[in-house]
């Protein structure tokens, strides 16, 4: 099976049964933004805006390269952004302007 076949037959999340290295018993206390991100996911689920399976699919849709470079909650928040854009709940312009405004709070001291 060549590389492109592997990419087709195994989507990024579909790793059950593959070989892998020994289990490293890793853990870390959540960063404040990670906990907010988790709470946001739950609230979006309660509000019927974005459910657990949509979230998982949204992460998988990032593709293996992005998944490989982002941490767990980084994948989540990027997936949420994409899903909210696709559902036309948010627009790219709104996110760009809000990001600039959030950044300005820290760089201009306002």
């Amino acid at each position: 099976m060549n590389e492109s076949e592997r990419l087709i037959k195994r989507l990024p999340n579909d790793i059950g049964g593959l070989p892998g290295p020994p289990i490293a018993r890793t853990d870390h206390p959540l960063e404040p933004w990670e906990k907010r991100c988790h709470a946001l996911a739950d609230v979006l689920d309660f509000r019927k805006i974005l459910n657990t399976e949509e979230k998982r699919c949204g992460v998988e849709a990032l593709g293996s390269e992005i998944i490989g470079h982002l941490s767990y909650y980084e994948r989540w928040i990027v997936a949420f952004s994409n899903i909210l854009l696709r559902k036309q709940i948010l627009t790219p312009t709104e996110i760009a302007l809000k990001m600039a405004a959030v950044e300005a709070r820290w760089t201009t001291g306002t």
Partner: protein
Amino acid sequence: MANQAQGHDHDHPHELEGHNESGIPGYYDMLETAITELLIEKGLIEAQEIRRQIEVLDSRTPALGAKVVARAWVDADFRARLLANGRAACEDFGISFYDDTLLIVLENTETVHNLIVCTLCSCYPRPVLGLPPDWYKASPYRARAVSEPRKVLAEFGTIIPDNVEIRVSDSTAAVRFLVLPRRPDGTEHYTEDQLAALVTRDAMIGVIPVSIDQASVPQ
């Protein structure tokens, strides 16, 4: 190496996240703030909902699951109800389910050892155990638990005799699992609280048995 599980995994250290050296939040931290504020401004969610849910998340720890296990060990009726309908029994026990998930409780016996995993992502019985550890969400555990559970268990120091069947249950968005470990021998005189103190998160995932911690043996 493309078919190796680690090929898709890069759970890098987290010092790069959050605030960087200049004190400015990282990109993803700011993205979370931006998305949340936009949704609040549109009236789709409320800031207090996020705050309340953070409190709910903070209130869920493996100590809750440990109380469920201890009750099941001392109360045969509760155990039967728990195995019949995990969610209903936990709710009767006072543990609310904040998500729309079923809970199936898997009982370890002399002949069966259960292990839970989520191969596709990170589904976990959060209402009763809190958030999963990072290793549960990382690809080596997800990839290998279903194909070589005995080797995975051995890496946790758990050796399961060959005549004991190992059952691996793969969680989904809608169905979550909790392992009901075996009550250790020598705990016949323990109170329910003393039993609960023995039960760890990893035992309820199924990667280790419950054992008597010498420090906690009642006098």
